[in-house]
């Protein structure tokens, strides 16, 4: 079991548990974390599962692919250095305790 902590816009933290291979987007959706839309359901087509990854965790996540990089240019909330698409972050044991912040809007 791998735990992910989501900080949402009202400052509250939701901690959710997922399994190896699940994406951050799927865990958010399965645990009712507000603010993740995921229109395309994880096909990396829409950029509506944008999250900010807490510093320190970024280095443990495989780098942004060219396609994700382009989609991140189209996020609703401003893109930052720690912006990622939740559907492209697949969980594994090294990510247990991952902290991400959900932006104010996905549009």
């Amino acid at each position, binding site marked *: 079991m791998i735990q992910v902590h989501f900080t949402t816009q009202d400052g509250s933290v939701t901690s959710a548990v997922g399994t190896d291979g699940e994406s951050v987007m799927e865990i958010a959706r399965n645990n009712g974390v507000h603010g993740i839309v995921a229109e395309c359901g994880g*096909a990396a087509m*829409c950029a509506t599962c944008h999250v900010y990854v807490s510093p320190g965790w970024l280095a443990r996540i495989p780098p942004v692919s060219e396609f994700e990089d382009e*989609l991140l240019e*189209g996020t609703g909330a401003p893109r930052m250095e720690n912006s990622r698409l939740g559907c492209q972050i697949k969980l594994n044991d090294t990510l247990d305790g991952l902290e991400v912040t959900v932006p104010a809007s996905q549009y």
Partner: protein
Amino acid sequence: MGRKVVIVGAGQVSATLAAKLRADGYDGGITVLGDENTLPYQRPPLSKAYLLGKQAMAQLHLRPAAFYSQAQIDLRLGCRAIAIETGVRVVRLQGDEVIPYDHLVLATGSAARSWPAALGGTLEEVRTLRTVSDADSLSLALRSAGSILVIGGGYVGLELASVARTLGLAVTVVEAQKRILNRVAGEDTARYFRTLHVAHGIRIVEGMGIRRLLGGGRVEGAELENGEVIACDLVIVGIGAIPSTALAVAAGLEVDDGVVTDEFCRTSDPVIWAAGDCARVRTSAGSIRLESVGNAIDQAETVAANIMGGERAYRPRPWFWTEQHGVRMQIAGLSAGHDETVLRRTSDGSRSSCWYFRKDNLIAVDAINDAQAFLAGRRLIDSGMDVDRAAIGNPSFDLRNLAKATLPEISS
């Protein structure tokens, strides 16, 4: 704000609408009536990753079961609504139970158009794809079939052709109109996909009708209008969808290829709303019915806001996506009615996009393996700004500059 919202249909609209009502503090009853026996799920993967066995059912669920119980959403699955009695505001279910409503939302979706029975449509192994149960049985059929005929060269047909070929079947696509994607994309995009499918060993026959399907109990082939017989042991019919409007018609609501609503997604009955594939929205710019996830979400959110007492108008912002033979295409806008196209292509052909104009306006972009073109196109369509066609046609021009220039200034 009513005390009880009843939603007929349990797909993308229901999952979005019920969640949005609760997120916005609606504390009345919410009942969702779904005739399938599954939690609300995503349909787009049914013709792609799910059919290939790359995605499990649990990944298709829009929300897990616990979400509905925790949010006190009464999700009634395997439950068929048979009538709406608008005078007394109840929905009648099969078995004669009645469910009262204060607000009713029709989210009944659409059904796959079937091949005429008189032309062999009732033969065994003539299939359509709409539900996960269709996908499950199609998946089994694909794994035992040798050759497949896909009737219809639209997106669903071409996606299914791609899946069938990946699974090793011999595949023929027959399109009655002059070319594939005739209704939904321009010639450049059609040419790209035609070449792609042919390169993968698929036969594409365009501008050719099918006289009839052949076979005894089971389908064995098809006779084309030119007399050619194509042998196959499986047929998939991908010739469009029909909005599911029977309940609305019987209830006396205005229906015109879709349940007609105003720009607030309200039907001709003030406490009945419609959203998703089944809904046709009338705006000052005309009427529109869209079959897409993005549209279902936008309309569900519009209905939620308006049930909560808002006055939110729906603004169509169509976008779609497809995946065939590993090629990704994102589509912004609707290209129908274009009078000019501009093609943008890298020299190696790895990315390309087709930009559609009508008079002076950009109306749609088909972006193949090019998310940048999709995003830029989407912003430019939204902004309604003039677009420099020469710049777009030049593949070394950075689209990000163009798209960013159209964003409103953000004061710091």
